[in-house]
Every structure is written in structure tokens, then in C-alpha cells.
């Protein structure tokens, strides 16, 4: 028998168009409103403001474009493969003399056309508009190419993800939800694993990994970069590769799909345990993450694990069994719990020696030491151009290793990133190109003080912290010293010779700073601003330890104007904070007029002088606040004591009586 066999079935295509044509139309209309119409409106608006942020075509109605790009492909995949999820439709369609692979390609091509044709039409419209009226203020043809490329690559990837999920499930709603979950999954699971590893492994620096590339693992979290930064060519290739892999997987899954499983949540029974325990595992991590980040306590994290795993298990069961009544099936949960406890145990005994690993001094190239993990990654990009921010002297490497050892010994599993704790990040760059990054939450600064001291006092470390030390004294064009508070007085020096001697003195002061001067600085409530030749202003806090500077000021009779003196102050109130509530001290401070149980008001000049001399930066766990009252100002200026050791005796006596 002669058979007409053309690979293209006109009526099948027509059916697809009747089914999903409207989606293409809506997509086109949405894009019309978002880009060409918006540009026309801006062009014809006479008193338009210039938008400097319109770097890419995505900046026109970003919200509409984002919604369209993320919703349209998923809706398309649902509608095109809807026939597989409805029993009567699936029976009819699969009784036709058409191979599954062929139908798949028909639907795929229709879907791709529904995505690409509207995008191409928009591009053509924009090209015509550009030819008719000059739109160079809004975009250049290269922007158009970028826009077309990104929308094509991203919508294709999302569309194929939707199809892949459609092959696995038998319910359209599940297809929609699972598609977004799958799109979010790579970034989500990495985040959850990193955060939870941080709870188990002492010294694990989740922030170091998080601040690098996690958001790029999912198109949803990568969105901002997609539209604002450049979507790199490499990324486009990766997206397309993923699309191709999903395409082949979808065909294979379709060929092996059992059609009787329409209306079941998961079509392939082999996937059911994967889904069930996968959901349970993710929910466990999510539970730990939630309570860990809100409570910072091990007991709460444990509660999170148990609660999360139970909820996850039940939800997975509900989806698979399509019923609420799953509260009797706990056998699988039991297996899961046993496995989870074993895994937790294996990680926590630290087989690989992760927790105690300190690289040999010879193997270390340089070290980044910081209290803030974010600064490490930013530092590389932002500051490295100006001055080196790493330690590489042998003495310092040894000192950091000793500090690291001390941190390992004194950090326990329950010292999570409590917000009161200081953080310490050590990043070793090894000579073989590898990195070892560890992060510790320091509960008690005293424990590491002796180890920090040699590092902080070293010339090299000071140079990593202060940009001024890299500025040539000859290049300074102006120095301004003025109090931070509303007190009249300012010292401005522009005379080159004076500048030279002042800046050199300041540098010498900084090099001479002791550990206590750095960590518990007493300062003058005053700031030194240095204007460099490149017109950059560097700020240095005027510390009481800056003897050279003070001497210089005195020698040049500037001292009175540069700092806050007792004469500027009408009165000082010292308030002792109660253990629990220290949030409302400012409100009280404003109303203070005389001494009471927990407040000392001082008006004598010598006592004010004494308090001034011990004023410094805020420390966690502060017990006193100081309020300075100035002439003509009802509101106090809040300061703190530099450390407990410097509090004047009369203050302690007053509160201890």
C-alpha cells in the first residue's frame, strides 16, 4: 500500500496553532507595550528626562519583560503538552498513526515559533523605527542584537525545562510548579547545602562561596545580571547546551512514557522515591536554614531539621498519592531519618580533616585576613588596584597560622554567626593556585587577642588597612581636620611644607599604633580628611594616640579648632545600660537633666576632660553610653568608652556605690 509520508503534518500544526496561538499573540502584545511603544512615548514626550540607565533594551518596562520571559514559555509547554495529561486526549492522540517523536517535534517547533516570531517581529519594528527616526538616545543596533539573543536563549531554556517536566508528570498544575522549582533548584540547593554545612563544619565559610557564583546557577536568581550586566557568550552557550540536553532527555522520556499514568503526579515510578526523599532532604535543609538564620542556636536548628523533614515527607507523599490522608505512612520516614543521622554523623566527625586543616607556611603565597567575609571578594575587585590588601611576609604568615590554630581550638559547634559575635575570615592563597578559606565566629575577643596583636601591629597589616600609607606625602594637596560634631572650628592646611610635615607625622603615628590603639581606640571625635593629587579624599579618625599630629597642631597653634575640648561641652551624661533593654537609651538621654541611679551628669570641666580622654569606638556588649551636650543643641551626641579599662574612676565609683 502506498502511504503519503511527509514529515510535516499540516493539520497537526494547525491544531497546535489553534491551541497555543493566542499565547504567541499575547506575548507579542506584551513586548510591543514594553519596548517599541514605550520608546515612541518617550520620543514624543517633550519634557522627557534623559534616562541614563537605559543601557540595554531590557530597561524599558523591565517588569513586563521579565514576567513575559518567565511565564510565557512555561504556559506554552503546559498547553502544548496538555494532551498527555488528559486521559481521553492522550488515548485519541496516541491512537493516531503518528510516532511520538514526530508529534513531539511538531509541538516543539510550534512552541519555539511562538517564542521567537514575536521577538523577531519586535526587532524588525525597532529597526524600522530606528530607520525612520533617530533613536540613538535609546538604543543602537548592537543593543537590539543583545536583547534578541538573551530573550531567545532564556525563553528557549525555560521552554525546554517546562517540556522536560511535562514528560515526567501527569498533571498540568504539577508541571507548572515543578518547572519553576527545577529552574530554581541549582541555586537553591547550593545555598541550602552551604548554609547547612556551615552549621556542621566548624570554620566553613558559606559566605565566601555564596558571594561568588551561586546566583548564577539559576536563571531566576541570575535575572538581575541577565538584564543589567552583560549576559556573557559563555553563559549563552551553557544555556543552549542545557536546552539540548533537556531536548534529548524529553524525547527519551516521551518514548518510554506509560500513557496510562496520565493524571498521576509522577509518571515514572522509578522517580517516585527520588522525588519523595529529594523533597524530604530539601525541606530538612530548609528547616535548618530557617531556624539557623533566625535563632542562631543548635537546638533550634535541630528542631528545624526534624520539622522540615516531616513536613517535606508528608508533602511529597501527598503529591504522590494525591490525597491528604497520608499520616499513616511513616515507614519511609524512618529509613530517611536513619540515613540522615548517619550522614550528619559522618560529616560532623570530619573524615577529611577539614576543620583542622592549616596549610604549611611554605605552601602559602599570601593571606587575606578580614572581619567581614564579603570584603574579601569585593576587595579583590575594588581595592587591589590601589594598594595590596594581603599579607605575605613570612612572619605574618606564621602569626596567622598560630591565630588560626587558636581559632580552631576555641570555636565550638554552637558558635554560629551570632550577630553579637565578631567574625574572622582567613583566606590562604596557596602557591599551587588553590585557596583555603575559613570563617570563624569569635565569641570572646580576648581569646585571640594575643595572636592578633603581632599581626595588627605589623607594618604590613597596617598597610593593608590604611590607604593613606600608600599615598606619597608630596601628592597631598589639602588636609582638613574638623570635629565630627556641630562645633565651630576647622583646620585647613594647604601650604606644601606644612602638608609634608603633617602627613609624614600622621603616617609615623599610624605605624606606631599599638594593638590597643587599633582595637580600642580613644579618639578626639574628630576626623582628618586628606585630599590626594587625584582628587580623592581619604578619611582617618583622629585618635588620641596620634602624638606627632597633636604635637604638630600645638606647634602651629591649631589644636583648639581641630578637636572637641571641654570648653565646647556644656554637660556630659553617662548612662549605665541595663542587661536586657539598651535600645531606648537615646530617648532617655534627651530628657536627662540631673543624676539619678543609672545616670551620672557631669558639668565640671576636669571631669569632662577625663571622660573626653577615654572616649572611643563602640564595642559589643557595651555597658555605658556617653551623651555630650553642646551649647545651643538640645540633642546629645552619643559616644562610648574606648574600653572598660579606661573608664575614669569617679564614674565607676558613682555606679558601684
Amino acid at each position, binding site marked *: *500500500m502506498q502511504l*503519503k509520508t511527509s514529515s510535516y503534518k499540516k*493539520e497537526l500544526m494547525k*491544531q497546535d496553532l489553534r*491551541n497555543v496561538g493566542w499565547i504567541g499573540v499575547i506575548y507579542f502584545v506584551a513586548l510591543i507595550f514594553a519596548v517599541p511603544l514605550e520608546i515612541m512615548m518617550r520620543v514624543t514626550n517633550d519634557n522627557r528626562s534623559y534616562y541614563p540607565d537605559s543601557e540595554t533594551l531590557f530597561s524599558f518596562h523591565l517588569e513586563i519583560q521579565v514576567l513575559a520571559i518567565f511565564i510565557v514559555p512555561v504556559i506554552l509547554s503546559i498547553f502544548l503538552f496538555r494532551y498527555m495529561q488528559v486521559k481521553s486526549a492522550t*488515548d485519541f492522540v496516541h*491512537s493516531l*498513526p*503518528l510516532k*511520538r517523536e514526530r508529534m513531539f517535534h511538531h509541538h516543539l517547533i510550534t512552541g519555539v515559533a511562538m517564542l521567537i516570531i514575536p521577538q523577531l517581529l519586535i526587532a524588525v519594528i525597532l529597526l524600522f523605527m530606528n530607520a525612520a527616526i533617530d533613536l540613538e538616545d535609546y538604543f543602537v543596533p548592537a543593543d537590539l542584537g543583545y536583547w534578541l539573543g538573551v530573550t531567545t536563549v532564556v525563553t528557549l531554556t525555560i521552554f525546554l525545562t517546562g517540556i522536560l517536566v511535562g514528560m515526567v508528570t501527569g498533571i498540568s498544575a504539577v508541571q507548572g510548579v515543578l518547572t519553576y522549582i527545577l529552574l530554581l533548584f541549582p541555586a537553591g540547593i547550593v545555598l541550602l547545602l552551604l548554609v547547612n554545612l556551615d552549621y556542621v563544619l566548624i570554620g566553613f565559610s558559606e559566605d565566601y562561596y555564596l558571594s561568588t557564583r551561586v546566583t548564577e546557577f539559576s536563571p531566576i536568581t541570575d535575572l538581575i545580571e541577565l538584564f543589567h550586566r552583560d549576559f556573557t557568550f559563555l553563559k549563552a552557550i551553557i544555556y543552549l547546551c542545557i536546552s539540548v540536553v533537556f531536548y534529548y532527555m524529553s524525547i527519551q522520556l516521551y518514548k518510554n512514557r506509560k500513557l496510562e499514568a496520565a493524571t498521576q503526579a509522577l509518571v515514572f515510578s522509578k522517580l517516585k522515591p527520588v522525588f519523595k526523599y529529594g523533597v524530604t532532604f530539601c525541606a530538612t535543609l530548609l528547616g535548618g536554614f530557617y531556624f539557623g538564620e533566625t535563632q542562631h542556636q543548635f537546638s533550634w536548628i535541630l528542631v528545624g531539621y526534624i520539622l522540615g523533614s516531616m513536613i517535606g515527607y508528608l508533602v511529597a507523599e501527598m503529591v504522590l498519592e494525591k490525597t491528604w490522608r497520608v499520616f499513616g505512612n511513616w515507614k519511609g520516614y524512618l529509613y530517611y531519618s536513619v540515613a540522615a543521622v548517619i550522614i550528619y554523623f559522618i560529616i560532623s566527625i570530619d573524615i577529611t580533616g577539614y576543620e583542622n586543616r592549616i596549610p604549611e607556611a611554605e605552601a602559602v603565597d599570601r593571606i587575606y585576613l578580614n572581619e567581614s567575609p564579603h570584603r574579601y571578594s569585593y576587595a579583590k575587585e575594588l581595592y587591589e588596584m590601589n594598594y595590596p590588601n594581603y599579607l605575605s611576609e613570612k612572619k605574618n604568615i606564621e602569626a596567622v597560622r598560630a591565630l588560626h590554630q587558636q581559632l580552631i581550638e576555641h570555636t565550638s559547634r554552637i558558635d554560629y554567626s551570632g550577630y553579637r559575635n565578631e567574625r574572622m575570615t582567613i583566606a590562604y592563597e596557596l602557591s599551587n593556585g588553590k585557596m583555603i578559606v575559613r570563617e570563624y565566629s569569635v565569641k570572646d575577643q580576648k581569646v585571640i587577642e594575643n595572636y592578633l596583636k603581632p599581626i595588627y601591629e605589623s607594618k604590613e597589616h597596617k598597610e593593608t588597612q590604611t590607604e593613606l600609607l600608600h599615598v606619597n606625602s608630596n601628592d597631598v594637596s589639602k588636609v582638613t581636620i574638623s570635629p565630627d560634631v556641630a562645633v565651630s572650628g576647622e583646620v585647613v592646611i594647604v601650604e606644601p611644607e606644612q602638608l609634608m610635615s603633617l602627613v609624614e607625622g600622621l603616617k609615623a603615628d599610624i605605624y606606631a599604633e599599638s594593638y590597643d590603639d587599633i582595637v580600642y581606640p580613644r579618639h578626639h571625635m574628630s576626623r582628618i580628611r586628606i585630599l590626594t593629587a587625584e582628587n580623592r579624599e581619604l578619611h582617618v579618625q583622629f585618635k588620641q594616640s596620634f602624638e606627632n599630629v597633636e604635637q604638630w597642631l600645638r606647634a602651629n597653634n591649631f589644636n583648639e579648632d581641630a578637636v572637641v575640648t571641654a570648653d565646647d561641652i556644656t554637660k556630659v551624661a553617662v548612662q549605665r545600660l541595663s542587661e536586657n533593654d539598651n535600645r531606648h537609651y537615646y530617648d532617655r538621654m534627651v530628657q536627662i537633666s540631673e543624676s539619678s541611679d543609672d545616670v551620672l551628669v557631669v558639668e565640671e570641666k576636669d571631669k569632662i576632660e577625663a571622660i573626653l580622654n577615654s572616649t572611643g569606638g563602640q564595642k559589643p556588649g557595651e555597658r555605658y553610653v556617653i551623651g555630650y551636650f553642646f551649647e545651643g543643641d538640645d540633642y546629645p551626641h552619643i559616644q562610648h568608652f574606648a574600653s572598660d579599662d579606661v573608664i575614669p574612676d569617679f564614674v565607676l565609683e558613682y555606679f558601684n556605690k
Partner: protein
Amino acid sequence: MISFSNVTKTFDAGKVSEHVLHDVTFEIRRGSIYGLLGSNGAGKTTLLKILAGILKQDSGTVSIDEQPIFENPVLKSRVVFIPDVVFFFSQYTVLQMAKFYQDVYPNWNQERFKALQTLLGLDVNKKVQRFSKGMQRQVAFWLSLCAMPDVLILDEPFDGLDPVIRNKVKNLIIQDVAERDMTVIVSSHNLREVEDICDYVGILHRGSFILEKDLDDLKSDVHKVQVAFKNEVPEALFASLNLLHQEQRGSVVLCIVKGKESEIEQVIKQYNPVIYDVLPLTLEEIFIYEMGGVGYAVENILV
């Protein structure tokens, strides 16, 4: 020729897998009308969907003219399946559906489509889903027959058709069988619905066949005989007959006998009966007498 050999199919239903077909082996001759009988849940629909190439059997082979049906478009273009709930694309008119069939089935016969339109008297420009259930079923038959299938698979086809249409459709089917040697397999839970068109029946019960019969053989093989004798009934008579059932009403003996009519007559005539009649036997009676043992399944299809 359609052939099933050792076909097994299980459905994965949650934690337990359900055995729907169990080691089914049977054949259907070309040009015959096969009645697939069985109570609800016997596995009829599953068997038909496997034959239509929709579902894939777990094991065993299903073939039409020695070729497997699953994912075989060349073969499937000669097979049409009409499910118990007919399906049409939403918003499609009869004409649009016809165009679709025409595009998909290579043997589409447009003249026949027009001829049947006059016969059925349905509006081709009306959306199919606006039709009543019975009319939709007619449309399904209409389109399917115009695809000129060699094998027509019908799942509970006559539900919801009024007697006039039912006969029309039956006639159309019989016509195709006679003219083109079309093979038909029709499932039903009711013997009476199909006995007038089938020449072969099989009873499926809990996933396996418990009976397969050629109806012509069956009818010519079993006879209801009424005899009366002047004197005592000769015992020797019954011994020499293949007796399925016997009862006595006064002097008249009624018996169901298996065998050729001429041979039975020959045996009985030896004893000089006063009355000898061969009465018509309904298919229903044949089943009841033949199938005493598996009563449940049989009773159910006789409702």
C-alpha cells in the same frame, strides 16, 4: 490477522501494582467481528488500547499481520480505535475534524464522507462538542469509517445510541466487513448487544480469557430437543447422547444436546418418539448451559 501471545499488563497504582491482563493469548481472523465480553474491570479496555498501539504491554507480543503495533505508524494508519468516551479537539467543527483525519489517515475516503453525511444528516459546520453524546458518537463512527481502516476497534460502542442509529451503524460495519474484509473487535459488557453482529466471542474475566467461541459453531453445535415417548423413556437414549441439560415436564422430555443435528436426529429416531422437535436456542441459553462452572462471569454479561 490479529494475534496476542502471552500478553501481560500491570498498572502501577500507588504502592501496589495492579494486574490487569494476565498471560492473554488469542487470535482474530481477518474479516471477522470479534465480541470481547466481560464484566466491568475485566481488562477489556486495556486489551483494546494495547491492540490500538496506545498502551504498551509489559511482556508478550501483540501483532497485526505479523507486525507489532506499538509505535508503528504504517500499521496504525490501518487501525482505528473508537474509545468509550469519544474525543474531539475542543472548538473543532465536524469539517475541521474531518480535515484532520484526512491529513493523518492516508486512506481517507472523501466520497464516503459525503455519502455518510447524507445518511446521518448531521451539520458539518457545527462544533462537535455542541452535539449530544449520541450524536458525537455518530460523528466518531462517521470519521472512523471514512478513514477506511482494516481493523476497527470499538470500546463499548453502542452505549447511548438509539435503536435506529444503532442499527444504521451496525449495518455500516457489517457492510465494510463484507465488502473490504475489515476486521472488527468490539467490547461489551452485554452479550445481547453484540450477539447479532459477532461471529466470534471471547469472555475476559479478571485479566484472562475463560472462554472463546465461534458463534456459528456454537449455534450449530448445541440443540434444544423436545421428545415424548408412548412408554417409559428409554434410559439408553441419554447414554448415547452428549447431554448438557435434561428436564421432564409430564411426558415430554426437554434436553440440551451437543452434537450435529442430523446425528442427534438419527439417534433419537431409533427409539420411535411420539414427538420430536428441535427448538431454537438463544445464545444466552447456550452460554448458561455451556458454562455452568464459571457462572459468575457469564451471568454478568447476560444482564
